């Protein structure tokens, strides 16, 4: 098995053990756990912020190139520091106090949104040995955690005392609850194939062939459904109705300013990353390199690339596809959006689940 031969050129397991032994040498066991928790939390938040900033920059560049423009090109080389400058601006902006809003819920909403996305972010297996939470119902937990975000969006719309926000939040609620079903079913389809819900296990089982290839037709259908539903789940174009700027100005976050708006903004980009990350883990082999059985030389070259690079590259491809959607398609209308989900995607996902079960039961997969 390749599993045994593949040694990552950057081994996070070794780093983890080194930190653990070093800390154990200087403090008691509870101290070690505490310090490690703090360290993990710091790394997560740092990674979260860095990835969001990078994504914002990438989105602006990608969209600019789609639109015959140059995009940010003044701050730093090729405008790379632009989103950092934007973040600083966002941090020092005033949080505008709005009359006649439900202050508690209004201030709570962005935190719920960001907490849900940090939780989901923490579950992703980034590289070999680089996963914070890894337990037997990992994918289930990930879905549950990412679903909390909708509560924050509904609260934001409800508490803003603004009709646009209200309509945006209602749209968002209807949309996310509907598309959650398709996401759930397409993930379930892949769980049937992998036979486990533990994320690390799912990745390990793709060491030979990625699930997208081993599950052939049903996996491909599930992947396409997941991409569509995932785009809808992150409220991105062509499903960006909750914040449809030409209809609702900014939808549920119309009234937010400063860092509270920043939280929504960050969460939106991180959700994009999370959706792409799950797609990578379930369909594209997670951090596993591309292997083709029989081509030993090719496989060895592939193994040379570190697993974190594999993960990020695959996520990058999926993100690019989702951005491509956004900057190409016009926006759907709410009834068309719901029709697409309930009349087409949902029955298709159910049939696909059945098909996958048959494929697995009869052993027709690679």
């Amino acid at each position, binding site marked *: 098995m390749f599993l045994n031969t593949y040694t990552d050129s950057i081994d996070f397991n070794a780093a983890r053990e080194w930190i653990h032994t070093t800390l154990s040498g200087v403090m008691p066991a509870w101290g070690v756990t505490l310090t490690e928790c703090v360290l993990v939390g710091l790394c997560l938040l740092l990674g979260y912020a860095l990835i969001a900033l990078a994504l914002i920059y990438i989105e602006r560049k990608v969209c600019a190139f789609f*639109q015959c423009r140059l995009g940010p090109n003044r701050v730093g080389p090729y405008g790379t520091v632009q989103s950092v400058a934007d973040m600083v601006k966002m941090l020092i902006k005033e949080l505008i106090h709005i009359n006649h809003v439900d202050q508690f819920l209004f201030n709570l909403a962005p935190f719920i949104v960001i907490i849900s996305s940090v939780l989901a972010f923490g579950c992703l297996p980034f590289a070999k040995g680089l996963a914070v939470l890894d337990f037997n119902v990992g994918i289930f937990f990930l879905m549950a955690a990412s679903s909390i975000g909708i509560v924050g969006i509904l609260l934001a719309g409800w508490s803003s005392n603004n009709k646009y926000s209200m309509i945006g939040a209602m749209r968002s609620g209807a949309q996310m609850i509907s598309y959650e079903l398709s996401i759930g079913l397409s993930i379930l389809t892949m769980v049937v194939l992998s036979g486990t819900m533990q994320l690390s296990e799912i990745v390990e089982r793709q060491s030979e062939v990625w699930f997208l290839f081993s599950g052939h037709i049903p996996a491909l259908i599930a992947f396409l459904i997941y991409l569509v539903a995932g785009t809808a789940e992150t409220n991105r174009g062509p499903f960006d109705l909750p914040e449809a700027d*030409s209809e609702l100005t900014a939808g549920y976050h119309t009234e937010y300013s400063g860092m509270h708006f920043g939280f929504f903004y960050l969460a939106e980009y991180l959700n994009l990353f999370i959706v792409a990350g799950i797609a990578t883990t379930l369909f594209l082999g997670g951090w596993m390199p591309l292997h083709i059985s029989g081509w030993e030389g090719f496989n060895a070259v592939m193994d040379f690339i570190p697993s974190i690079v594999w993960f990020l590259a695959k996520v990058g491809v999926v993100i690019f596809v989702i951005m491509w959607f956004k900057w190409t*398609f*016009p*926006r*759907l209308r709410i009834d*068309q959006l719901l029709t697409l989900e309930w009349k087409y995607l949902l029955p298709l996902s159910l049939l696909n689940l059945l098909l996958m079960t048959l494929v697995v039961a009869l052993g027709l997969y690679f």
Partner: protein
Amino acid sequence: MNKIKDIVSRIAPEAVFSESAPWTVTVPTAQFHAVAQALRDDPQTQFDFLLCMTGMDWGETLGVVYHLRSTASGCEVVLRIETADRENPQLPSVSDLWETANLNEREVFDFFGIRFIGHPDMRRLFLRNDWVGYPLRKDYDASAEVNPVRMENEETVDVTPSYEEHDGKVEQEERVLFDDQEYVVNIGPQHPATHGVLRFRTSIEGETIKKVDVHCGYIHRGIEKMCEGLSYPQTLALTDRLDYLSAHQNRHALCMCIEKALGIEVPERVQYIRTIMDELNRLSSHLLFWSTLCMDLGALTAFFYGFRDREKVLDMMEETTGGRLIQNYNVIGGVMADIHPNLVQRIKEFIHYLPPMLREYDEVFTGNVIARQRMQGIGVLSKETAISYGVTGPSGRASGWSCDVRKLKPYGVYDKVEFDEVLRTGGDTYDRYLVRVEEIRQSLRILEQLVDNIPAGDYCVKTKPIIRLPEGNYFSSVEASRGEFGVYIESRGDKMPYRMKFRSPGLPLVSVVDTLASGSKIADLIAIGGSLDYVVPDIDR
């Protein structure tokens, strides 16, 4: 004209007829509604299109001038009614005959204080509800003490007065626009999809629109009032600022009207230049339409494609006229300056440049399944409704109404070029979209025929330093980018117009929104608004 005389005299024997064109009938107030109805319904006349409605203050009397046109025969007639009561002027409403009279009568009420009996909604249209006086009356007091700049917000009212006649007595009734239970959302005045400061009060149920109430006047500048205090060459500067995307065409209409009144023959070269500039302007306007409609439907990339190409048109116009939006190019008797030597070459290049881009537009947007679903069958405007509301231009032609002034009454050199009047029959958002895209191609075709044949000659004839129009009424219209733009001048032989009225294509477009959008979704309202392509300064004037 004899048929009209027959019909009118049968109902109103006291009606006065003019001796020469423009055929004008002065109708007594009491029989006016019956006369108007007869003129509209009689199969021999069929004046089904109320082209222009102008409130007038003739000093002793107040009144209204109606320009009627028959869409079947193209005949035109002018009706005049007046009332000597300046304190409490009342005239019969024709809003039940022509839908377009609805907003126009509100405008007349706003500016002249004439109450229309039988009109369902007699609110001010452009000015604030607490405005004192009627500004287009000749005895209006414009001092700042009467109407100071008000620092408080205008109260939004949900009831509107209307006046009905019962047994010879006029009674005021209150009509409810929105009741307390309705969920009313303001779309505008500051909203990305209203294309300017326009406000729709929209009653919605869930996502479905029940009713739309249009509030205009946020950029009303009183251009018609200003014109009364300016000499004719000075008024030219204001037309560019009406529909800024049809700057050339608007000014063309005004110049034509003044030249007609003065009897100035414009050189052939000027006619060519004006036509070329009109079409360039139409190109820039339709490209902007395409871009903004795509943006309204959420396709932001398409928006940039359109703007990329519109930029080339603007560059060409800038080189010759010096302006990109407000061009100040047409003058009485010609144009301001000769065309730039590069213009011909650049237009030729552009004619070859744009068609591949149009194919790209089709690939990125027209053929897109989401775009089609968002547009097809949305906001269907029937031909009859279009005529009744006076929805001219590409929006009217999408409903199958052949209303292109370039074909009906050719001006410039439109009679010398071959082009098709683009007609579609569906009347939905998609048809309005396709008509404009096809009109871009037709404009290129017109340019192609003109650009090589610009005759030599003067670019302007000499006019007198002070221009006085002979006494009388003058009306001319052109096909502006979004409909028929008309200029009505009443002159008393002075160097300033006694009354100058602009028939804007935008007002009918915005008046039809309620009819089109009721019953559809919020997102459809945006699509409908984008496809009607109104420009707010044109509505407000």
